[in-house]
C-alpha cells in the first residue's frame, strides 16, 4: 500500500515537472510590447486563424525567444548543479569557475573572425572546456580547501575577460564591435531561427545524457579512493558529465551571452526543496530553471518600454540569495 502511494506521488511529481514549464511558457508568450490574449495563443497552436499581427509576432518573435529562454533556463542551472557536485563545492557555477568568461571570449573571438553560428558555438565550447581544465588544474589541490577552486575560477575568468577586451579593442568599430558588445550584454532578443536549429539539438542531447545518468551523478561526490574501489569507471563518468555540462554552458552563452547567477540560485533552491539526491535534483533543476528563466525574460521585455538586460534581473535576485546562502549554509550539504 505504502509502495503504491509512493509510485502515485512520483508520477504526479513527474507530471508536475513537465506541465508547469509548458504552462509557464505558453502564458508568457502573451506578454510583451504587444499583449496577446491566451485564447489567441491556444487558437494559434490549434492551427486556427487569428489576428495576422498576433500570429506573425508569435511565429517570428515570441516563440523563438521563449524557446531560447527554455534552452538556456534548462542549461545554465543544470551546468551549475553538475559543477557543484563535480568539485564538491556549493559555490561552483559557470560564472565562478570562469567557464562563462572563457566561453564568452571564445564566442567574441569567433564573431571577430567572422565564423558562422556553428563556428561561434564550437569556439565557445573549446574555450569553455579549456577554462574548466585550467581552473581545475590550478584549483584542485591536496589541501582540500574548498575555496581554492573558486579563487582559481576568478583568476582564470578575469584572464579571459581581459582577452575579451583585447578582442573588442582590435575589432572594427563600425561593423564587428557593436555586434560583439551587443552579444556580451546578454539577451534573448536577437536569437535567430538558424541559431536555434543548431543549438537546440545539441543542448537537448547533452541534457538528455545528464538526465539518464542522474542517479550515477551521485557518485561524483563520493570520496575519490572509495569510489575507485567500487569497480566503477569514475573517470569516464566525470569526463562525460563535465563535457556535457561545458557544452550546454558554452552554447547557452554563445546564444544569449552571459546570464549570471542562475547556475547558483536554481540548483540551491532545488536542494532546499528536494534534498541532495541527483535522481530528483536533476529533473527539478531543469524544470524550475526553465520556469525561472522564462519568467525573468518575460519581465525583462514587458516591464518597461525598453528592455532590461537579463543579467541585471538575475543579479538583483542572485546577489541577495548568494549572501543568504553564505550566511545560512542551510541548503547545501556539499
Amino acid at each position, binding site marked *: 500500500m505504502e*509502495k503504491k502511494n509512493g509510485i502515485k506521488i512520483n508520477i504526479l511529481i513527474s507530471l508536475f515537472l513537465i506541465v508547469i514549464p509548458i504552462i509557464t511558457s505558453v502564458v508568457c508568450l502573451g506578454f510583451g510590447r504587444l499583449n496577446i490574449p491566451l485564447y489567441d495563443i491556444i487558437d494559434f497552436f490549434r492551427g486556427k486563424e487569428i489576428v495576422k499581427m498576433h500570429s506573425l509576432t508569435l511565429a517570428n518573435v515570441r516563440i523563438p525567444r521563449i524557446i531560447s529562454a527554455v534552452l538556456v533556463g534548462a542549461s545554465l542551472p543544470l551546468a551549475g548543479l553538475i559543477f557543484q557536485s563535480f568539485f564538491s563545492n556549493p559555490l561552483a557555477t559557470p560564472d565562478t569557475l570562469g567557464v562563462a568568461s572563457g566561453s564568452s571570449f571564445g564566442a567574441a573571438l569567433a564573431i571577430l573572425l567572422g565564423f558562422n553560428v556553428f563556428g561561434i558555438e564550437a569556439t565557445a565550447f573549446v574555450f569553455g572546456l579549456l577554462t574548466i581544465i585550467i581552473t581545475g588544474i590550478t584549483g584542485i589541490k591536496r589541501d582540500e580547501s574548498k575555496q581554492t577552486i573558486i579563487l582559481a575560477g576568478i583568476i582564470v575568468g578575469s584572464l579571459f575577460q581581459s582577452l575579451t577586451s583585447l578582442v573588442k579593442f582590435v575589432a572594427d568599430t563600425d561593423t564587428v564591435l557593436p555586434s560583439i558588445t551587443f552579444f556580451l550584454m546578454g539577451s534573448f532578443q536577437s536569437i535567430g531561427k538558424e541559431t536555434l536549429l543548431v543549438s537546440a539539438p545539441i543542448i537537448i542531447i547533452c541534457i538528455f545524457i545528464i538526465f539518464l545518468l542522474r542517479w*550515477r551523478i*551521485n*557518485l561524483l561526490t563520493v*570520496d575519490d579512493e572509495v569510489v575507485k*574501489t567500487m*569497480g566503477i569507471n569514475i573517470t569516464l563518468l566525470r569526463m562525460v558529465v563535465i563535457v556535457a555540462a561545458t557544452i550546454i554552458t558554452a552554447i547557452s552563452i554563445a546564444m544569449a551571452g552571459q546570464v549570471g547567477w542562475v547556475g547558483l540560485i536554481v540548483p540551491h533552491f532545488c536542494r532546499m526543496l528536494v534534498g541532495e539526491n541527483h535522481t530528483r535534483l536533476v529533473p527539478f533543476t531543469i524544470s524550475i530553471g526553465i520556469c525561472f528563466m522564462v519568467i525573468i525574460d518575460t519581465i525583462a521585455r514587458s516591464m518597461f518600454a525598453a528592455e532590461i538586460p537579463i543579467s541585471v534581473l538575475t543579479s538583483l535576485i542572485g546577489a541577495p540569495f548568494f549572501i543568504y546562502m553564505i550566511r545560512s549554509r542551510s541548503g547545501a*550539504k556539499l
Partner: protein
Amino acid sequence: MNTSIKVNNLSFAYGKHIVFENLNFEIESPTVLSILGPNGIGKTTFIKCLLGLRKKTSGEILINGKDIDDYEKKEYYSFVAYLKQGGKETSIYTVVDTVLLGLASKINPLLKPKDSDIEKVYTILNELNIYHLKDKYVSKLSGGEAQMVFMARALIREPEILILDEPESNLDYRNQLLMLDTIDRLKAKGKLIIFNTHYPEHALRYSNKVLMLNKSFGYRFGNTTNIITKENIEETYKIKAVIGEISDGDTVYKDIIPLSIV
C-alpha cells in the same frame, strides 16, 4: 573456495624514500589480519597497495594466485571492498541513498536502482542495527553512526576481502565494539578481513594473524599470540608495557597497558 592473499618480497618507495621492503606473508580466509605499527610506518600505504590504489615498487601481491596487476579493475573490485578511516569520509546524501551507491557497479549506468536494490539496503541496515537511521542525512549523524553507514555501503557489495583503515578510530567504546563485533561476524561467515589499528588490544582480541611493521626489525608476521608480545610491543612503539590477563569469572581476557616512554 577459500580466498587467499600471498605477498612476496613486496616493497614500496616514494622515489628514494623506502616505506617498507621485502614483506612476505600468506593468509587464507577465514582470517582477520590486523596491521600494527607506529604512526608514519606505512600501514596505510600498505593497505593501499593491497587495494590497488598505490602501485607497488617491486614484489608480488597474489590474490587467489593471480597477481593484483593482472586483474581487470572491475573484476578485482567485485570481491574487494574498502572502508576509510573513521571521520575521513562524509556523504551529502541520506543513509539509504549513500548505501545504495555501493551497488553502483551492478546497476546499469543509465538506470535507477530497483526496488529490490532498496530491499537489499534495508537488509544490510538491519544487520548492522542502523535501520532506524535510514532516512536521515549522513552529515547529521554521529561519527560512529556514519562509520557504520559506510560499513554498510562496503558490505552491500558482498566482498570476500574487506580492507579497513583504522575502522575503530574516533569511535567511543560502544561504537568500537559494534565495529569490531561486525568484523568478528564477517570472519565467522568465512571472509578475509584486513584492518589497520592503533590498538594492540583490539588486534589481540579480534584477529588471528598480525602483521607488525617496525623501523628496527622491518616487520613481523604470524599468529596473534606469537607476535603481540611484551618485547615486540616495546620495540615497535618504543614504550614500556605490560600484558596481563583479566577475568570476569568465566572467561580470561588478555589486555595490554602502556606504562611509560622509553
